[in-house]
């Protein structure tokens, strides 16, 4: 990159906050897709003003800007696929304000989601979105990808908590969307447009997030099922009974076998498992728990365990948490797809995935957020086996076809990035894609803001 441009960048962010060393470029070349694209430099701005100056400079010189939080995305949102500059939010990590009366907080994008939760919880407040990477992923990344998590069923996803944003547009101008109020219908909802836009429309430098009162009590229930139909049926039956659990996690028999092989948790007799959580007022939670237990039993559930203390709940979650590490027993490499189907179709999806796996000779395992139909479909492969990747790619395509046939969507919470871009057309029509492209064009005519994402083949 041009020396004078580097000098200008250094003048903006200060020495030490720009690196062009090969070591730093390598360290900011990857994300959880485990793919690698070397940027030309990495920048660590310390304020929104610095970001704005940087983007202005990049725009003038047509240099790609790639916003990056923790680099924990699964679809490549933070990968510098066209080179350019990675702009990390590593230093933009302050919680600026927590307003108890008005139930919102204002944060910088580099704040770790789990840190924010801990902070507001200590004040009796609640920020519900809980992607499984919450201990290291950032709010900025969550906003870019519209991250979800188990609590999505009851509490919604990141987009339901973003009240307002401060964004540096691709020409370097700073705009503010939304505000500090829950309601607001003045013009188009630009806030929602930015949430889930994968950093392609602008660089979020500040977010106003909605908070809730922290629930008084949480009850966790683990139920084993002798067959998958029973578990899938229980999911729908629980919701139909009028209860909205704060988590309703589904674990299929392949996962049960892996976890049991990994560590004995007394679940080996199950063909499917549900992990259910209800939260709210003392008394109400217990009543709902009893109702759920009854529904589970009706559907064949057995060995139903409950806990409401921190330790006991943690123990019940152990089996669910052990899935990811234990799946490696099947094969060393994982292709993880976060498809969503209407919850009544979970059974069909899991059975269909199993059948696809059988046909392609690929091991599969399904688990995830059963309550909102967001099932993580995992294809466990060994990349070293010739032809396995190709077969897996075909199998993934069929999983997507199945998902769409069942009335679902191909990404619930990971976004499109680069890994799902080739499949965008499976779900969206030409007109929809054209509309989205023209939005991108309007915001970023030079195409410098996180280029090469979302849209296929450009």
């Amino acid at each position, binding site marked *: 990159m041009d020396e004078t441009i580097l000098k200008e960048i250094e003048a903006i962010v200060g020495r030490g906050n720009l690196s062009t*060393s*090969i*070591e*730093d470029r*390598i*360290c*900011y*070349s*990857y*994300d*959880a*897709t*485990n793919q690698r694209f070397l940027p030309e430099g990495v920048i*660590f701005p310390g304020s929104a003003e610095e970001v704005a100056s940087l983007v202005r400079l990049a725009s003038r010189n047509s240099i790609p800007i790639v916003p990056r939080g*923790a*680099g*924990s995305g699964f679809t490549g949102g933070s990968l510098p696929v066209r080179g350019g500059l990675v702009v990390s939010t*590593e*230093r933009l*990590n302050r919680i600026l304000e927590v307003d108890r009366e008005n139930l919102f907080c204002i944060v910088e994008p580099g704040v*770790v989601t*789990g840190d924010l939760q801990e902070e507001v919880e200590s004040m009796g407040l609640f920020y519900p979105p809980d992607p499984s*990477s919450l*201990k*290291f*992923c950032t709010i900025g990344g969550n906003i870019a990808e519209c991250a979800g998590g188990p609590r999505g069923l009851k509490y919604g996803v990141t987009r339901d908590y973003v009240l307002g944003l401060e964004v540096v547009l691709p020409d370097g101008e700073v705009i503010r969307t939304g505000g500090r109020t829950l309601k607001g219908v003045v013009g188009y909802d630009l806030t929602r447009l930015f949430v889930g836009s994968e950093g392609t429309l602008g660089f979020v430098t500040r977010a106003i997030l909605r908070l809730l009162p922290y629930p008084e009590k949480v009850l966790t229930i683990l139920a084993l099922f002798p067959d998958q139909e029973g578990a899938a049926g229980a999911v729908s039956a629980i919701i139909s009974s009028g209860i909205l659990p704060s988590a309703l996690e589904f674990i299929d028999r392949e996962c049960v076998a892996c976890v049991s092989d990994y560590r004995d948790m007394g679940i080996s007799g199950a063909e499917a498992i549900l992990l259910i959580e209800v939260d709210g007022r003392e008394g109400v939670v217990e009543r709902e728990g009893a109702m759920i237990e009854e529904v589970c039993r009706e559907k064949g559930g057995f060995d139903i365990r409950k806990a409401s203390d921190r330790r006991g709940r943690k123990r019940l979650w152990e089996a669910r948490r052990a899935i*990811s*590490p234990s799946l*490696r027993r099947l094969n*060393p490499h*994982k292709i993880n797809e976060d498809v969503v189907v209407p919850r009544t179709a979970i059974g069909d999806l899991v059975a269909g995935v199993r059948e696809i796996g059988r046909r392609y000779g690929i091991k599969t395992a399904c688990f995830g957020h059963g309550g909102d139909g967001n099932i993580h479909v995992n294809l466990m492969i060994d990349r070293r086996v010739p032809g396995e990747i190709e077969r897996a790619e075909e199998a993934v395509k069929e999983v997507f076809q199945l998902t769409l046939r069942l009335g679902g969507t191909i990404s619930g919470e990971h976004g499109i990035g680069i890994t799902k871009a080739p499949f965008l057309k499976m779900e969206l029509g030409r007109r929809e894609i054209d509309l989205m492209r023209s939005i991108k064009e309007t915001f970023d005519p030079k195409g410098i803001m996180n280029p090469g994402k979302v849209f296929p083949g450009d």
Partner: protein
Amino acid sequence: MERWDLSDCVRCGACRAVCPTFSVIRREYACGRGKVSLWEAHREGEVGLSEGFVRAVTECLTCAACRENCPNGVDVPSLVLEARAEVVKGRGLSLSKSILGRFLSSPTMASIGVKAASILKGLLFREEGTGVHLRLPLSHLSERLLPAPSGTFLKRVRDYEAEGSPRVGLFTGCLINHFLPEIGEATVDLLKRAGAGVVIPRDQVCCGMPFLGMGERERARELVLRNVEVFERAGVDLVVTPCATCATALKIHSRELVDTPEAKTFASKAREVTELLRRDLGVKVSGNGPGRRVTYHDPCHMSRYQHIKDEPRELIEMAGHNLVEMSHPCRCCGLGGTFTIDYPELSATIGRQKAEDIMGTGAEVVATACPGCIIQIRDSLHRLGGKKEVLHVVQLLP
């Protein structure tokens, strides 16, 4: 070598959540997946033994928090040790580390040094709180609260022997030998009262861990060979050490460094002291008199390398003390062996966090099971102005 496969790292970023150095530095090279990426790039010739590479592999406490938290158990600490060995091969050791190494690997040099220091104590050091401060403006060392040099424990006790069963060899460890002999004394006392025989071979040498940490694998190997021979000659049933780090070296690294049946036997006989007391000897202590309010810090080499967490706590509570947990008892104290010499400020920042967690408990005593942690925690508390006793668990037992 422990088995570790780099392809197990899928770059998920979970290591970012728990790495104590990353939490301060906030740059990817500091966390596990950054180091894995750089090591891979080094292997492929993309990155040489550059400043950036060397910093990435030395600026690590090898606390193993990342390995414990990694969904695939990627063994970053082993990678770091291997990489350091490569750095030493390619660039040699720094002067300060070679001097330190000279002292550590030779019992004579070490005891002469410590002897000289203890004679010149008044001249060299100023006593303060639970330790001493160096009077000389010697880089960062003068800011640090150091343990007072005490003369050599091994020399003092000679070739101590006491009858009993099982016959246990005491591995003292350098820090206890030269600076904290009271821990050695308390250990001997406990073993004797438990009816065990005690042997303290005088010609034992350093466990090798500092050399492994510096990347001097060959020197570490020589020391292990020596200790294997010394303790075999002593004819002991078990080898015990009150140092968590030495225990890790004896149990795990000795067997990796030396591939002989004797080394395997030696490793299988090695025990950490609280583990020996509880599991092997089934010792039950009971308190006499009012217990104290004690908080326990888990040394990384105990909780994560040896998975010993319950035994020290059981002993503290059995002795009648009131155990209050600090938040994050397993978070590294920030010493990291020679890390604290290479990165004194970073080490102090991480230590401060530990000291704050300790202050939050309101405990009067901090117990732990590693002399390294004791030295670091005393220093960190001193800097924060916190007045607390920092002791080894064995010193809290009646």
